[in-house]
Every structure is written in structure tokens, then in C-alpha cells.
């Protein structure tokens, strides 16, 4: 009847063991973390934490052992990831490398690139960022102007990228650049390169966002040399590769949990003698949260059997982003602010942080408008 399929999916019994291992680890690792630090979830940066997680074997979980991976299942990785996010663990350092860049290199990269990068990523010591947007190319990604020209043994890259998450800390950037032009097809002539951000000709600046923190930045590329074996995939196949990469970004459980910490705080606030209004909001949020988790599980179940789930993942991301974006506003509207107890202060801090962070939820990884365009296409409207 429809073009999408959300068959329920149940995680197997054996993940219960893994869950309790992750919980025990996080309990200890996050003992000194403040509520606001936890509310950062996947924007929280902590090198030490990422290294410890690598030691546990929880980065690159599904990758081949010969590259330092652990050959565990997609479902086991899902469990680790959702436990990290629900607990508010600081995963930013390794997040992009684990979710996108690693799989992208394993799929499209040369043997040299795999050996050079993947084992260090799995240890939680090598961080990636994604060079897609440019000052004049945001949602219209195919209009980028950063370009590569042929030189002896490789390429010279010129241009700039912006809004690049963790660019100030990352070691390597998978960069989308123009390597050719086809007047009839604007998606042709794009390629992906692995750029070592410590190369000569690279300048990076962090950009302070309106929460007062620095999570993304800009990077200028001035005659940056990249050897031939750092071309990712096929020359000119960049567009298809980037879309495969974005599908990885859009399908994870992180797409509805960004405000989850605040919900836990809210439940703490209303513990004693909740009003009907408070119960009502708690119930409404629970229904959304539970449904989004079922949808996310369903997508995971499909991906685990190697089925495509682009439309489904896009639906979950848009619904999830709307939910996590709305949540701080709804809780602010319902909180009883007359009570000034210490627990209320930490709730107020978390709320304040999330109100400011929430606009990014429907921007990163594809704006709401881009996502709804993809869904319209899936419905046959374009």
C-alpha cells in the first residue's frame, strides 16, 4: 500500500549481556560528568573517553578484525550506540569516524587508506570530519566549487569548507571536491578525497556557535597535495558516494535522543504529587519516545539484513529531529518554576542548554527541507 515499511523488530536476547556491560562501564566513566555535560550527548568531546571506549572494543565494532575491528553484528553496535546516547556519553571525538568515515573507507577506500586509518579509528585515537558544505553551498551540495587539479603522483586541492563538525580536533577530512564538469549533469565530476589536516596549505578555524561553544569550524585549502591513493572510491563518483554516506548518518538511533536527558530530569522534578498537566506531558513524550525507538529499531532490523532503508531512515530522522527540538520547549512550558531546589537548578541548566542547542537538530545531517524533499520523492511526488 505504501513505499515504506516499518515492520517491528526485536533485538535478540543476547544483547542484554552487552547492555549491562556498557552500563557498568558508563557508570564508572561518567561519574564526574555534570548534567549539562551529559546533555551534550554526541557533541561532547573527550579524547580520554573515546580511547577508553576503543579499548573496550566498542568503536568499529562491525569492522573486519584485520583492520582492528571486532566483527560484531550491526545489532550489537546499535545497542552500544543507544546506550551511549541515552546516558549522555561524550562521543564527539570518535563519532563521525565510527559512524560514517570508517565504513566509507572500508567500502570505497584503497588498501593503503584502510591500513593507514581504520586501526587508529578503532582504537579511538584518530578523528574524522566531513568536508561537504562550503560558504556558498549548503543544502545545494552539488554546487560546490572546491576543486582538485592533477599534479605529479596526486592532486592539488584548492577551496574551503565550512560548518565542519570537530574540524578543530580532527586528523582527517573526507572532502567532496570538483574534479571535472559536465554541463548536462551537475552531479557528475565530483570526487571524495582523504585530506590529512596537518598537511601544508591547510588552515582551520573554530567557529563559536550561539551557545558560546565551538563545535564546528571552517577550513581553507591552499594547494594542498593529496596522493593518488587518498582518492576515495572512483573519480567522478563522489555524488553517489556522498549519498551512501549520508544514508549512514541518517539511520542511527541518535536521531531522537538529543534531548532525552532533559526528559529524565523532568521526571525527577514531577516525582512528588505530579499535576495532571505534568502527567499529561510526561505521557505524551513517552508515547513519542517509545514510537521513535520502535521506528529506529525497525530501520536497524532492515539494515541488518542488508535491505535499503533510505526512505524509512529519512522519515525517522525528520520525526526524531522535530521531537527532540520540541521537547525543551514543551518542558519549559510545563515546569513549575516556583520550586528553587538544587535539583531544579540542574534541570534549569539542562533546559537552558538544550533550548539553545535545539535549532541545530533539524539542520545537521540534512535540513528538514532536504529530508522532506527526499520523502516526497519516495512518495512519487517529484
Amino acid at each position, binding site marked *: *500500500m*505504501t513505499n*515504506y515499511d*516499518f*515492520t*517491528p523488530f*526485536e*533485538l*535478540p*536476547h543476547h*544483547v*542484554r549481556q552487552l*547492555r549491562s556491560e556498557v552500563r557498568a562501564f558508563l557508570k564508572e566513566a561518567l561519574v564526574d560528568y555534570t548534567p549539562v555535560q551529559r546533555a551534550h550527548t554526541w557533541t561532547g568531546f573527550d579524547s580520554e573517553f573515546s580511547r577508553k571506549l576503543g579499548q573496550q572494543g566498542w568503536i568499529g565494532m562491525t569492522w573486519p578484525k584485520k583492520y582492528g575491528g571486532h566483527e560484531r553484528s550491526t545489532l550489537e553496535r546499535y545497542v552500544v550506540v*543507544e546506550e551511549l546516547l*541515552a*546516558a549522555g556519553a561524550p562521543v564527539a571525538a570518535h563519532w563521525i569516524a565510527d559512524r560514517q568515515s570508517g565504513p566509507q573507507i572500508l567500502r570505497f577506500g584503497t588498501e593503503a587508506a584502510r591500513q593507514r586509518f581504520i586501526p587508529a579509528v578503532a582504537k579511538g585515537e584518530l578523528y574524522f570530519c566531513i568536508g561537504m558544505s562550503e560558504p556558498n553551498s549548503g543544502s545545494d551540495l552539488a554546487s560546490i566549487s572546491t576543486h582538485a587539479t592533477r599534479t605529479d603522483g596526486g592532486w592539488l586541492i584548492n577551496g574551503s569548507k565550512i560548518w565542519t563538525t570537530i574540524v578543530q580536533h580532527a586528523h582527517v577530512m573526507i572532502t567532496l571536491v570538483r574534479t571535472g564538469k559536465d554541463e548536462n549533469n551537475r552531479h557528475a565530476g565530483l570526487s571524495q578525497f582523504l585530506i590529512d589536516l596537518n598537511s601544508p596549505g591547510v588552515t582551520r578555524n573554530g567557529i563559536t556557535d550561539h551557545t558560546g561553544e565551538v563545535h564546528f569550524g571552517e577550513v581553507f585549502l591552499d594547494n594542498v597535495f593529496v596522493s593518488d591513493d587518498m582518492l576515495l572510491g572512483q573519480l567522478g563518483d563522489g555524488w553517489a558516494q556522498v549519498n551512501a554516506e549520508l544514508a549512514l548518518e541518517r539511520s542511527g538511533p541518535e536521531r531522537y535522543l538529543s534531548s*532525552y536527558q532533559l*526528559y*529524565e*530530569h523532568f*521526571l*525527577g522534578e*514531577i*516525582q512528588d504529587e*505530579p499535576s*495532571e498537566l*505534568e*502527567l*499529561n*506531558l*510526561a*505521557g*505524551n513524550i*513517552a*508515547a*513519542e*519516545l*517509545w*514510537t*521513535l*525507538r*520502535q*521506528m529506529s*529499531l*525497525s530501520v536497524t532490523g532492515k539494515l541488518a539484513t542488508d535491505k535499503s532503508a533510505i526512505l*524509512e531512515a529519512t*522519515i525517522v530522522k*525528520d*520525526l526524531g529531529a522535530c521531537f527532540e527540538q520540541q521537547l525543551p520547549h514543551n518542558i519549559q512550558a510545563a515546569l513549575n518554576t516556583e520550586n528553587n531546589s538544587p535539583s531544579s537548578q540542574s534541570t534549569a541548566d539542562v533546559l537552558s542548554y538544550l533550548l539553545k542547542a535545539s535549532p541545530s537538530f533539524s539542520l545537521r545531517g540534512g535540513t528538514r*527541507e532536504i*529530508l*522532506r*524533499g527526499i*520523502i*516526497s520523492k519516495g*512518495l*512519487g*511526488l*517529484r
Partner: protein
Amino acid sequence: MNEFTDILTTSVDRLFSDLMANGMPETYEKPVFDQLWRAIEDLGISNLLLSEDNGGFGGGWQDGFAIFKQIGFHAIPMPIGETIIAKKLLQDCNMPIPDSAITIGTAHTASIQHDKSSDQILFSGDVPALPWGVAAPTALFHCKSQGECYFALIATSHASTSAQHLNEANESRDSLSFVNAPLIDLKKLDSSSNQVLVAGALLKAAQIAGALEAALQLSVQYVQERKQFGRALSKFQAIQHQIALLAEHAAAASCAANSACHAYDKGDADFEIAAAKLRANRAIGESTSIAHQVHGAIGFTQEHRLHHFTQRLWSWRGEFGNDRHWANYLGQQLVQIGQTNLWKELTNRSDAR
């Protein structure tokens, strides 16, 4: 979805399409009702969840979901889902299973007496909002009397007074009053959770998912056909994004109801069903608004089919628990679970045992 569910969905889809081929029948008229019910019984759908020993298919709630959703998708004006649920609950309680359409509900007032001379159990009380309460020969309802909870099975012809009501979509929602009427059977329940209400909410959630899908399908077709400003409406981004949102709500309601059925097959699913009904309810306002908006004036006419779905959606939102009811229920559950156990409880309920 397994093979059985696939075959079931296909054959029920065909049956329902045939039933509705000549327009929407007025099933609150008893002769029309009886005639249509025979067609439904010929396929034996109402025995879907009964064991093979009881003449059924041995299906689970997930098979039920396939039928319930089809009822919504085709806007079938018959208590098919209600009968499937009643038979399943009766079987689970070892009560007799009538071979007829069975409506379900919850009594507002109830008094139960044992008449020694006739050795009959007599029921007095009011049972409101029974789907096809007058047309369906039997009713299964939940009632409370002197602090105890019961399932009561009764012939609707024993009602002393009956008031026929219609919901927004002209579906029967009748109120029956009984005075010392003999029950077919009575069962005292151990749990205080009203499973007629819970299973009814699950049925409505799945029906809502089906009706949302129908509204989505009609909207997609219409904007592809209708041209304004020299191009199809589907080419306007404003229209595309509205319909994308409608699809998102339809997908959420469907996934929620289907997942709740999955949980019900494993055991207690009050939490999941509450969440599913509430999520489905919350999809309705925005979705029906979008469906009507993209249809323009034609969608507001009696002649167009859209109202069969939107009017049902508005009715079903209030039936077997509205948003306030289920949000409060869930809120109370959440406060009991508490801040520190929430994630643990959510995952524990869904990981395979």
C-alpha cells in the same frame, strides 16, 4: 511479515474492496448489517485469533494488526475488529464463544445478582458507546461491581432500553441499558486492568493507521492529477512538504500500532498499547488538516471519499481512550518507573526475553 500474514492481508484487501464497491452501506440498519455480516463470516475472519481447536486460524495479534489496519484503510462500517477481539478475550478466559457478531465495551454502572430460582446471573446497568450495539447480537463488556472486576457476556436483545447513536462517520455507537437481564456468562477477573479497553485501544490505533494511509494515498493521487498555474499540484514544494509530513505521521501510527501488537503477543502490553493509541491519536489533527487542505473544496463534499477517512479518524481519536486518558495513564506509569530507571525499563520491555 510472514507468509500467512501476507496471504491474509491480500485476501482481506480483496474482500473489503468488494464489500465497498457499491459505496458506503448504512449498516446501522439491521437487515443491511445482517446481510453484510454473512459475507464477512463466509471468510471466517472473526475467528482469526481463535485456536485451531476452537475453529480458528491460531493467529496472533500481529495478524490481527493486518486486518485491523485494513478495516481502517477501507473504512469498513462493521464490528469486525471488535468481534475478533471479543472472541480472543473469551477464549483466554475460558468463556463460551458465540458464533455471531460481538460488540465490546465498558459498563458505567453495574449490579450483578444470582437468581436462585432460575439459576441465572442477572445484570443491571448501562453500557454506553457500543459499536453496533443494537445490530450485533452479543456484547462482551467489562464491569465493576462491589470492588470486583468482571467480563460479562450478554445477548443485546435483552436490553430494556437502547439508544442508537452515530459517531462523526455514521458508525453505530449505541447505548444499552439492562434491568435484571440474564447473562450468557460472567467471569471474575484477577487483574484490574480493563483488557476490553486496552484491546479496543489497540484496534483503534491500527484502524487509525489504516485510515491515515488511505488519506495519504488519496492526497498523493489528487495532487498528481490536479493542475493549477499550469502544473500539477505535486510539483509545488509547499504541497510536497505537507504530504511528506502526513506520510511521517501515517508511518509513525502504523509502526506504533504494529509494535504494540508484537508486544501483546508476548504478554502484558498495557504500556505499549497506551503509547500506540496516544501516538496514533496525536497524528490525527495535523494529518487530517493536511489531507483536506491539499484536496481543496472537492475534499469537503459529500461525494468525495476523503471524509470517510477523516471523519472516522476524528471519531476514533475519542474512542477507547482519548489523548488525555492515555497520556495520564502513561504519565503515571512513568512517574512510578522514575527518572533513574526509565531507560532500563524501556529497553527491558523490548529486548527479547
